[in-house]
């Protein structure tokens, strides 16, 4: 049975994102992402595969705050890939994802340097999970050690498990069957995930003819797999 090629795409509706941070914590829980200490956070070494960026616009009292959930954009032409000397970060032609192979990484951090979105995180130390927090670690995801780079994978372990199940049941993957942890938990439904190759999928429907869509740093030519939808305007009579 030939496996379909999936163009995994995440759509982020900035109008709906409330900045609550559920996605941030869900990602930590699903992917064994360590929490660093206060001192390390001060040094800029906090590791949040998914983060909410808050931008201010204007000045008081006409001030606005904008939330942008930011995770690895899974670029089709990723700047982080060609610079790895040991081929630890590479592109999956099958899933159209940017992969990080942990055991190959030697920690040059060139990929983090080249990444314009700054969504790659380096393990400066061996992550410490005080017992019995180790019981919570997800066995489907490698626990990284010091010297290894890591980043959002669109919960590739969930993608693979779903594909495996679908293969065993001899059926194609259904839309909405694969949900990364962040997408699954988002209360306002700001995150939508799916296969852009499938015309009937939610992401395809959401994006077709949508004037609100844009990609981050599009002018760099990275071709991200994450599409953002601009905030809207309400028209009220006064």
């Amino acid at each position, binding site marked *: 049975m030939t496996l379909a090629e999936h163009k995994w795409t995440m759509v982020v509706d900035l*109008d*709906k994102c*409330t*900045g*609550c*941070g*559920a996605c*941030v*914590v*869900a990602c*930590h*829980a699903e992917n064994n992402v360590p*929490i*660093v*200490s*206060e001192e390390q*956070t*001060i040094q800029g070494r*906090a590791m*949040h595969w998914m*983060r*909410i*960026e*808050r*931008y*201010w616009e204007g*000045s*008081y*009292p006409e*001030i*606005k*705050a*904008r939330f*942008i959930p930011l995770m690895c954009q899974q670029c089709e032409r990723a700047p982080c890939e060609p610079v790895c000397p040991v081929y630890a970060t590479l592109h999956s032609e099958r899933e159209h994802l940017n992969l990080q192979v942990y055991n190959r990484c030697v920690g040059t951090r060139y990929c983090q340097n080249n990444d314009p979105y700054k969504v790659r995180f380096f393990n400066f130390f061996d992550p410490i999970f*005080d*017992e*019995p*927090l180790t*019981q*919570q*670690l*997800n*066995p489907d995801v490698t626990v990284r050690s010091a010297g290894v780079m890591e980043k959002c994978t669109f919960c590739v372990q969930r993608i693979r498990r779903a594909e495996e199940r679908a293969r065993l049941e001899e059926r194609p993957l259904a839309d909405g069957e694969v949900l990364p*942890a962040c997408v*699954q*938990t*988002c*209360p*306002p*439904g700001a995150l939508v995930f799916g296969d852009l190759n499938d015309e009937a999928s939610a992401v395809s429907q959401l994006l077709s003819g949508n004037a609100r869509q*844009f990609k*981050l*740093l599009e002018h760099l030519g990275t071709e991200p797999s994450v599409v953002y939808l*601009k905030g*809207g*305007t*309400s028209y*009220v*009579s*006064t």
Partner: protein
Amino acid sequence: MAKISRRDFIKMGAAGLLATVLTGCQNPRRWVTLEPYVIPPEEQLAGVATWYASTCRQCPAGCGIIVRVMNGRALKIEGNPKHPLNKGKLCARGQAGLQVLYNPDRLPGPVQQTERGSGRFQPISWEEGLNTLYDRLRQAGSGTAIWTGSTTSGHLLDLFERFAAATGAPSPLVFDLYSELNGLAALENADRAFFGQNRLPTYNLEQADVILSFGADFLGPWLSQVRYGMAFGAFRSQSLGKRGYLVQLEPRMSITGAKADWWLPISPGTEALVAQALARIIADGPLGPAEWATKANTLASEIDVSSVAAASGIPVTELEQLAHIFAAATRPLAIPGNALAAQDGQGTAIAAVQALNAIAGADGLALSPDSPATSLLKPQVSPFGDVQALIERMQAGDVQVLLIHGANPVYDLPESARVVDALAHVPFVVSFGPIADETGVQADLVLPDRTYLESWGYDVTSPGFDLPAVGSQQPVVTPVFDAHSTADVLLTVTRGIPTAAAALPWSDEVAFLKEIIPQLGPGAAGGLDTDVLWSRFLQHGGWWPATAPPPAPHTPVLSQSVQAEAPQFQGDEQEYPYFLHLYMSDLLSDGRGADQPWLQGSPDPMTTVAWQTWVEIHPQTAQKLGVKDGDVVHITSPAGEIEAPVYIYPAIRPNTIAVPVGQGHTDYGRYARKRGSNPMDLVGTTSEGLAWATTRVKITPTGKKIAQAGFENKAGVDEGFINEAFPG
């Protein structure tokens, strides 16, 4: 051949030995032990997870959860897609629940303490602990007091109530900082006054087209964060491309304020005044459809709009604009926020906002419909007056035994409430907390309860929405530590107390639950037999009816106008020039999240700071004070003083400062301890409650500076550089 010297020989030998040893070295993880089950659970596959349904207890909302369990370990929590409240979604704190279960600082078993406050706990056996509790309760008779929190399970509260009634002790108190900062007691009172029901109000956000939120941070930890988050998503994408319009009126931009279409920085304490001014403008117009006129004339109070403009800092033109927007909407909704609940005369303040809803026909308000679930007990939050009464009883020596479950009053309440003082007059204090928090450290005996993922129970969903629901709780793993369920502890020790034993005849909590839950009858899951009803209750994560009951009539019962005054603030304006704005941290909530590293280490949504406390100050004010980001300042109120580093925050009134609640723990585990400051130390008590929304402070720079643990980089922000990366 050259002769080899002894030194060389030894060197070569050592090298050879090293070589031999090295080649023999193996990766120590090569030899791994595989331990199979002795008796496996039925239908368990190795490497395939089982999902168990339960209810989250990180806040009183009671979202349904499902927990991924593999080989007896809980790996991930998700929202329960079947639960009518959250429909598969979950907030950050719900996701962090696994760190409550597997927290390294949980007490491994029951302990006793001979010197209160020392933290030197001596481990004891459960037999000893139970016997001690039994002796004390038997002697105390009616001199027992019970203090529970807003997340204490419904069934445990029920048992506590029965116990108290049987022994002649007063009803248990339900009070913690979460319920206080959310204004839950005031909202429940208001609900009773307006709608005749004793529940938390429900707001139909998704159907409204214009929302006027008077300081209600409904996208934050207020009332029901997940459900309101979902409703907000629907509010923004209504049918035919309609997008709801949100106005937020508050002195400091919360995350709800960040999502507002129009954010109005009103002066603290003027929410009710503004609401009355809007009603006045609508009545005077007259604005809105014809059917509004009568109600507007009756309910609008006599108030001078321009004086409200002066007091609130909103120009008259903007107030008029607001009134027009509200009146022109088809389904407008006004939401009274928690700051209103914290003022003296809170009932009147809330009524002033509800008047707008009454004028508009209150389509945005929905009552939790009646159902079999109404018969089950849901903690009704105690007003602060009850808390003060208990503290006075303790002070007077009327309380022999104090039982504390699900609350941390020593941390929650400010020094002005004198809790520690009162505890000193109670001969025996028992805490049921799984971790030694500030209150546990003042206890004589700690009988740790199991955490919610290891517990049985039920939770009546409140606020309820279209489908009334009762969430179920079941252990998803075998208990990690030697903790026992408090309900079982109570049932065990009361067996020897004749009055109580008659009132609590169950052998254990499961027997109690199995008697209560089937009385709900078949819900959406069906079933008739008691055993089937019980197992469906557990399997689906709760009980709810198959279809939504018809909505009850819902116009607030307001027959005349109210006259809300501006509240009195603690502290003289000259000496204390700034208003203090306290808010619950989105991640740490009222401080109970501080022991979970996922919550401590994740960035705060508005400031991106983790692990620390900060004080938000307007850029101009900071300039006037001569402070920059990271400079530590003293914040002093009439009631107390704290220190906090500055965070320059552009979306706050210049004469207001804001401090998040949640840090400043002295105990509660390694992640919480000795971190930041507790701003509740600044709060005084009034006749009606805690003055957390009506306190003035002064700021003094200390000259100290700390590095701020923020995720963002603030270079260039204060200089006003335009952010070119954000299009539109």
